[in-house]
């Protein structure tokens, strides 16, 4: 288990199963499970068996195991994309506090309109136009590097759009590619990647 930005997938959707008393995923209906029958702190999903290491109670913004009382815990309190989630003794800190948002009460993921936080219109194709004298535009070449080129009408490699789900800038030509700083942000190179993870880079 990890934490991620909302992405609309079934891997982020859960339900309480009355018969097994476990929390299940909508992905494949397996249950929350402390790995190795509760002998570790690692959280996963596993075939439902209703062992104590699969039973959690939600109260006071905490998910606590019914037997060892350990709570669902963002490892190291790191609020980053893909950070692992474990169980840990109760601390009452923010990394153990969770809200349940029922799907029928959740806001719908926007498919158009302005994302005020990021400043882009969602899913609306745009050019990235340089303010240098020639007013060239950014172009994604071969689904990889970003270079400066003269505007060519309707050339999709020069068009981008903001994806409101992953909150990344995508190529209109290669829609499965997002803009990223290479080497997990450790490089000066900008490129398009198909490994979209919504991390800060």
């Amino acid at each position, binding site marked *: 288990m990890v934490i991620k930005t909302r992405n609309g997938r079934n891997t982020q959707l859960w339900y309480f199963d009355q018969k097994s008393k476990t929390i299940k995923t909508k992905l494949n209906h397996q249950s929350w499970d402390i790995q190795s029958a509760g002998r570790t702190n690692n959280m996963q999903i596993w075939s439902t068996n209703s062992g104590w290491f699969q039973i959690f109670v939600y109260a006071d913004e905490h998910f606590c195991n019914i037997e060892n009382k350990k709570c669902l815990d963002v490892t190291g309190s790191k609020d980053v994309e893909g950070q692992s989630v474990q169980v840990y003794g109760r601390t009452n800190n923010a990394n153990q506090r969770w809200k349940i948002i029922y799907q029928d009460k959740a806001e719908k993921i926007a498919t158009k309109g302005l994302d005020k936080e990021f400043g882009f219109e969602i899913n609306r194709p745009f050019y*990235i136009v340089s*303010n*240098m004298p*020639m007013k*060239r535009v950014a172009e994604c070449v071969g689904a990889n590097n970003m270079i400066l080129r*003269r505007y060519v009408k309707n050339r999709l490699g020069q068009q981008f759009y903001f994806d409101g789900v992953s909150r990344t800038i995508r190529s209109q030509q290669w829609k499965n590619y997002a803009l990223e700083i290479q080497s997990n942000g450790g490089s*000066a190179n*900008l490129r398009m990647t198909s490994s979209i993870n919504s991390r800060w880079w």
Partner: protein
Amino acid sequence: MDVSGGLDNENQNIQIFNKHGKVNQQWEVVYADQYPEEPIKGELNTDFGMYVERDFYVVSELKENRYLDLINNRNMVIKTPNGRKTQIWYFHQQSLTIRTRYNNQSWDIKNAGRTNDMQIWSTNSGWF
């Protein structure tokens, strides 16, 4: 997002660099459905102040009003009007350069802009 080396050249690499606020880090997001149509032949390019592919002379305002011309079909000089194509120019929209009707090469500052000398050269749309 930064144009590498601040060079406004075709195919110049775009990278990430610390913010310094100069023009090579300034960008505008222009939505595709609002991107202005480029002027076609005979229309005025308002950014560049010339009509697209409409032939013109360049006339000096010195006393004799000589015309811009070419010597050795390469270097720019002023000459008395002579009716040759080396004195006829036009603005080329695709490259955003001024070209000669003689061989359709473009105005060019020699040595990629490192000198003050003007010539005509193969079109590359470098800032020079």
